[in-house]
């Protein structure tokens, strides 16, 4: 009942095109995360689905019905805002019941639904308080409660956790994940935080300048990024990208050694994640490098190594690594972990 389909959706602000034709099928009950750098259009796209921005071209179907031009209230969606947007002059309970009140629901029904939402979100002790008497996390819960009360077809979240501190963010992330399990409703969630995206999403939509760079499960995006943008955007620390040359079933890295190449057409970039690089003796692996900086993080240590012509490379290794700054090491990269990209920045598949 909560499927959403975007068909070649575009958004123009005057002469400027901010959403450049987005096709997307969202299944009922799916948790979809829109992620991308600021200005990529992820919030705009969400607002277009919610009806807060007009859809310039293309079509939007919700649950099989064309809702391209429907007003927000007719789309059956609920939205949670980054700033919560709780009405400051109403109590928590009135805030949560407001949409039902405007719809003219009977008082008993409003009270029952508000009580149920308050129970789910553990807001019962706060129902009579004003929003300003609540902490950030509680306010966010009220904002979510307000959307639950509406019993929507789908939930839209616009960077809901950005205003919370780090510890609360982790807690609320967990609560939203649990909520999705309980309610089994379609959720579309916008964030610039890839940890939120990776942990919450059934599928992630990576947006770049108003187009979809890739759609896939978190694992697909991490393991098989479709292009350089997704490769460097997903994963922290980000994927190392090196120049490379290919030919005759071999690839070579400047200042380094060569290895087998199985791509169906030539590649010009090689990507390898920091956690997939092994440390060997000088002369082993693809490249030799000098350890430049050692970043000790407890469980992990990040090595920033200088590989000469290949540039700086980040290596993620154990917290108790014996390597010291200034050491000469060999970088060992398993063949199956290497990702190749062609001149257009697109991933090269095995031929």
């Amino acid at each position: 009942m909560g499927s959403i389909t975007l068909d070649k959706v575009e958004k123009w602000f005057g002469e400027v095109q901010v959403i450049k034709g987005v096709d997307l099928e969202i299944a009922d009950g799916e948790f979809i995360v829109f992620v991308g750098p600021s200005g990529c259009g992820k919030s705009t796209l969400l607002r277009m689905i919610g009806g807060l921005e007009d859809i310039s071209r293309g079509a939007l179907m919700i649950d099989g019905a064309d809702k391209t031009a429907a007003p927000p209230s007719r789309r059956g969606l609920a939205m949670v805002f980054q700033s919560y947007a709780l009405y400051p002059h109403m109590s928590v309970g009135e805030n949560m019941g407001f949409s039902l009140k405007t719809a003219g629901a009977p008082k008993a029904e409003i009270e029952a639904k508000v009580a149920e939402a308050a129970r789910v979100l553990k807001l019962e002790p706060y129902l009579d308080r004003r929003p300003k008497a609540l902490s950030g996390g509680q306010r966010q819960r009220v904002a979510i409660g307000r959307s639950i009360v509406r019993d929507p077809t789908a939930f839209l979240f616009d960077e809901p956790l950005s205003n919370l501190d780090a510890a609360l963010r982790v807690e609320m992330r967990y609560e939203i994940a649990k909520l999705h399990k309980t309610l089994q409703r379609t959720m579309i969630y916008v964030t610039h935080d890839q940890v939120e995206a990776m942990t919450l999403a059934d599928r992630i939509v990576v947006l770049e300048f108003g187009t979809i760079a890739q759609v896939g499960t978190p694992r697909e995006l991490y393991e098989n990024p479709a292009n350089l943008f997704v490769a460097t955007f997903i994963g922290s620390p980000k994927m190392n990208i090196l120049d490379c040359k290919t030919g005759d079933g071999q690839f070579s890295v400047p200042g380094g050694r060569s290895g087998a190449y199985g791509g169906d057409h030539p590649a010009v970039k090689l990507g390898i994640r920091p956690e997939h690089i092994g440390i060997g003796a000088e002369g082993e692996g693809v490249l030799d490098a000098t350890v430049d900086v050692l970043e000790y993080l407890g469980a992990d240590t990040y090595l920033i190594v200088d590989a000469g012509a290949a540039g700086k490379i980040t290596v993620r290794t154990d917290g108790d690594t014996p390597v010291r700054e200034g050491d000469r090491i060999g970088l060992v990269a398993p063949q199956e972990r290497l990702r190749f990209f062609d001149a257009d920045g697109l991933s090269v598949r095995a031929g």
Partner: protein
Amino acid sequence: MDKTVNQKAWFLVLPVLILVAFSAVIPLMTVVNYSVQDTFGDNVFFWAGLEWFEQMLRDDRMWDALGRQLLFSGIILLIQIPLGVFVALNMPKRGFWASFCLVVMSLPLLIPWNVVGTIWQIFGRVDIGLLGYTLDALGIDYNYTSDPLAAWITIIVMDVWHWTSLVALLAYAGLQSIPDAYYQAAKIDQASRWKVFRYIELPKMMGVLMIAILLRFMDSFMIYTEPFVVTGGGPGSVTTLLSIDLVKMALGQFDLGPAAAFSIMYFLVILLISWVFYTVMTNLDKRDG
């Protein structure tokens, strides 16, 4: 522990004390002085006690003026506050036209009060005034110099023209401080235009509206120049508001004692009403913060 005694600090407050003494306390005390004394000329004064206050309180003249004054302030508040809010709600939110509206609306506020009076005095004249002539030509019997109702309508319309902008500007500022997210949340909550006004805009505007009401009340309660220029308090004394009456008494009849008693009571009424407003406002602030 001994308190540090630093008498030198008094010297730092001294300039302010002197300034306030000359600007407020001394002039006020001369009024108090007149209100409790009587004179028969030659700068010789006799103690009169509270005689002038008693006389004024028994005199219908002050009560009539006070009645007219309250009626005037009440009517202009009832018109200007809703009208100002209505104008503010319909002003463009941003862009060139927003600035344009702000400038155009500020214009009446920048005109000196006696000029405003003169403008309306001429505007309403039946012989040469655009408004008066037009109404007359349409067959409407309009003459603010002889018809009490016409005189009242003229000074009220003039005050509305002069000051509604102030209310609109304050309300506009209040509206501008409402984040877009509230409107979007209201859209999702399918709130009607009226509900958006009632539950979002009005509560958010309450603070500035209270200030607008207080300012407009005090200003209208002390109004002198504009109605004096237009009607001179007439016809008869139907538009003789408090300050016009006061000036008539003090400078026209040179009844310094009663006039002084009158002005002190006038001052106390304004003080009292302002205090009530202030208390209500701070309570509102505490509630909604």
